[in-house]
């Protein structure tokens, strides 16, 4: 089955692409997809512990099973907004 993968921010730059159609085996999970992506774009591998995932625009666990046609977004740590709690935080 095929899923549409979206890359954002640092992951977009590391992968060198914003979107990619990926073929995965039936029953593949988000974690399996990440394995495929790391093989294809080794530069993203260091983000393994910090990346989050959204399937069809909802945050999901890594063991979430994918379905044909899913839109899977790779979400680096978010940093919108502004104005930190502490001096070391962003803005």
């Amino acid at each position, binding site marked *: 089955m095929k899923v549409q993968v*979206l890359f*954002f*921010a*640092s992951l*977009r*730059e590391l992968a060198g692409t914003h979107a990619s159609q990926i073929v995965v085996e039936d029953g593949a999970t*988000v*974690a399996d997809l990440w394995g495929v992506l790391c093989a294809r774009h080794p530069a993203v591998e260091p*983000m393994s*512990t*910090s990346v*989050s*995932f*959204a399937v069809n*625009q*909802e*945050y*999901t*666990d*890594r*063991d979430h099973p994918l379905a044909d046609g899913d839109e899977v*977004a790779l*979400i*680096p*740590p*978010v*940093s*919108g*907004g*502004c*104005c930190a709690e502490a001096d*070391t935080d*962003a*803005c």
Partner: protein
Amino acid sequence: MFDIRKTPLDLDELVTAVSDPEAGAIATFIGTTRNHNDGRIVSTLEYEAYPEMAIAEMRKIGDIARERWSLKKIAIAHRIGLVPIGEASVIIAASSAHRVAAFEACHFAIDRLKEVVPIWKKEHFDGGEVWIGSQKGAAFPAGQDGPSR
């Protein structure tokens, strides 16, 4: 009103969006880009969003806020693309009959936005650029089910 836009944000527009004949109190929050961070002089700030999901997550923040407090209305707008230093990157407005609800909902909304809404900030400074958040080994947004690790 929940919006992501490339153009300057307008405080009056958000206040108007939450105005209500039964609301005696409106609290707003304006987040402005600053020219320094962590000792660096920042020349430009750039925001990127996953717009459809960002709007959906903002809506969820609004729903949670309305469940927790006796709000009339809440509005959230975030600017993306290049945001000149000193201009607003985010504005939140909340209205309620009584002031505590408006303050607490507005404060909650900016805290939560920074945790879960898929928007990223890149700082351009003398000698480089960096996506904020990605340089530290930050984890799954708080308050969500974490991925299995």
